[in-house]
């Protein structure tokens, strides 16, 4: 009787075990916008097709995401799989959160690094090791209002709006598109507005030939002559030419959606936002070459694995990563460019008109500076740009101060690094 009961219960356990997934992985990301839905669909599909694995996705907005991820990591409760932006890779490496994936690529994931867009692939690498798989290429481009272009007569022979390609055409377009429609002395239609000012200025600085750090990441080069020239050009556009409003809180994106702004530089991720709007005739184009060389900013969402995964978790995670990158066209549909070169060639991607227009800029993208002291650099950069564009300080003086403060952060960082090398304690050890 007892034997039978034990037998039955064992049988029961075995049955339920078969039905229940063997491995559960937590997958965190910051896709709380329109990009959340395609990702959720992918997770659902994976769970359906892989009954032995269960992915639980958790989304938080990017602002709070990194804090939570870091705190979870320090407390030993980080998710098994998570997404971070390429520029954050070094900080996560130094905090010892990430598992290098070099040994998993071929065998476990079945991925060929050569099939990835090189800049995106490299953005997930650091000091010779690969720390994640880039999912996409999030690139900046120009959005323009076709109706306003037609009204201003900026059209080609066929009568189609002709977005500017260089500085001369850009300035011409600006002059034609910046209007005082009701004649009250106030401009109420702007040709161009700085939206996402930080990224727009980064793009222009690189177009003018500027760099942000030296090769060894020891010296911040933000106040170089070329960067100063780029920022001065932007300031003059506002205060001398008076063709662009000061980027104070003029929410340019809102203005663009309302049809009061003709051109903005923004990320590809805004496509999803525009698609909801049916009364706006917009187009996308590469960012015009305003400086000496074409350039635009890109970033990638990198799928990363926690450092200390168990074998079963690791295998499951590899399958999931493989699935995500194999299905990155579904992901791209929402407004992204897949990082896999083989997918860029497919008719399906080519049929995504806006995405493939953005992808025309792939030859000259640059990735955000990725240093462990990136946040400090960002703080200083934003402040300097704000002061210069509001004309409360000269571009040179503002950038000089930014460099001085960033250097302090760099010094502090290397001091700590040296100290860590000398101390015998485990990496990541806190108080």
């Amino acid at each position, binding site marked *: 009787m007892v034997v039978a009961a034990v037998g039955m219960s064992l049988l029961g356990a075995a049955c339920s075990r078969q039905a229940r997934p063997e491995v559960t992985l937590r997958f965190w990301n910051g896709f709380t916008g329109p990009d959340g839905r395609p990702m959720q669909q992918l997770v659902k599909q994976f769970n359906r097709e892989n009954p032995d694995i269960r992915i639980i996705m958790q989304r938080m907005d990017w602002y709070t995401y990194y*804090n939570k991820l*870091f705190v979870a990591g*320090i407390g030993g409760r980080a998710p098994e799989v998570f997404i971070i932006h390429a520029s954050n890779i070094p*900080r996560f490496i*130094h*905090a*010892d959160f990430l598992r290098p994936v070099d040994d998993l690529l071929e065998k476990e994931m079945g991925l060929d690094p050569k099939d990835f867009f090189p800049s995106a692939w490299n953005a997930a690498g650091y000091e010779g090791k690969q720390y994640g798989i880039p999912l996409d290429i999030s690139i900046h481009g120009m959005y323009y209002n076709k109706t306003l272009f037609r009204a201003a007569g900026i059209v080609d022979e066929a009568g189609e709006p002709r977005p500017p390609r260089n500085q001369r055409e850009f300035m011409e377009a600006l002059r034609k598109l910046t209007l005082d429609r009701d004649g009250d002395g106030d401009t109420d239609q702007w040709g161009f507005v700085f939206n996402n000012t930080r990224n727009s200025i980064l793009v222009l600085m690189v177009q003018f030939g500027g760099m942000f750090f030296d090769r060894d990441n020891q010296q911040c080069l933000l106040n170089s002559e070329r960067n100063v020239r780029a920022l001065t050009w932007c300031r003059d556009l506002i205060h001398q030419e008076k063709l662009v409003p*000061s980027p*104070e*809180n*003029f*929410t340019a994106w*809102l*203005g663009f959606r*309302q049809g*009061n702004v003709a051109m903005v530089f923004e990320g590809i991720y805004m496509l999803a936002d525009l698609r909801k709007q049916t009364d706006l005739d917009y187009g996308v184009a590469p960012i015009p070459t305003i400086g000496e060389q074409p350039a635009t900013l890109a970033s990638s969402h990198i799928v990363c694995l926690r450092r200390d995964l168990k074998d079963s978790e690791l295998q499951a995670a590899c399958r999931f990563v493989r699935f995500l990158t194999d299905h990155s066209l579904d992901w791209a549909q929402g407004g992204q460019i897949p990082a896999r070169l083989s997918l860029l060639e497919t008719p399906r991607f080519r049929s995504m008109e806006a995405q493939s227009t953005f992808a025309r800029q792939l030859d000259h993208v640059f990735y955000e500076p990725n240093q*462990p002291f990136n*946040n*400090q650099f960002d*703080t200083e950069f934003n*402040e300097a740009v*704000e*002061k210069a564009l*509001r004309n*409360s300080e000269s571009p040179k003086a503002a950038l000089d101060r930014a460099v001085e403060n960033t250097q302090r*952060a760099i010094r*502090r*960082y290397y001091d*700590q*690094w040296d*100290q*860590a090398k000398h*101390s015998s*304690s485990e*990496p*990541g*050890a*806190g*108080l």
Partner: protein
Amino acid sequence: MNQRRNFFPRCSGWIFVLPFLILFSAFLLTPLLYGLALSFFNWEMLSPAPAQFIGWGNFREALHSDRFWASTLATARFVIMATPATVGLSLALALGINTIQGRRQAFYRASYFLPGLLSISVAGLLWTWFYNGEFGLFNAYLEKIGIKIPWLTSTSWAMKSIVIMSLWWCLGGATIILLAGRQQISQSLYEAASIDGAGALSSLWHITIPQMRPVLLFVTVTNIIGSFQVFGQTYIITRGGPEDSTRVLVQYIYETAFLHYRMGYGSAMCWLLFAFIAFFSVIQFMAMKERR
């Protein structure tokens, strides 16, 4: 038996406060002391280097940092503008509401209290739209009479706008407390005063204000403490801009600790903020005591 009987009365107080004491120690006292210890260490949360004891180093760095003083100044500007306005307006409102009787009084009390029930993120986002220079509600109406105010875009206006929003958001709480204080005053004092020929103003000055002094002290002190800790409004509405004019101390501390992960330095600034608040609170208590 006898022992047992003695035990309970002696310990019953402790048993009653125990749940609070446990929570207080676990979630306030321990982190507070941990933070105090941390403020003497150089510890970057994500750095591979272990925490290093640097004595007063973090405090020295703060006191020599332009950013620290700029954000202290921004905080001070908020306190100076917000506290007198809150106390003054809520006193006026409380006295006004007090003259209304019955259900209408309850209605006004509730309507002034209502905004405070919104979370700061909701209230903040709402006001960001109101204040928007180009497409916002306020300027849409003001432009009809030819005025355009750079609510959040000018360094001289931004903090004022934050103060106005804060008034709307937290006036209700102070009003309710002051109203309760006003209603504690015995009606006989006013009757006696009116027999002696006192007018409304002299009743206010000689009866209402002196009688309400403890409540006023409470509202002022809690307001100053709250104002020193202002964060949500500026973080959501202006993110500290334009040109750092609204980057208050708590926001600077938050950024230092949770954006740059400099935990030791962040803790040190927290304790400096605590010192400021304690200093002003003590001064206020002393001033009020002396007058009594």
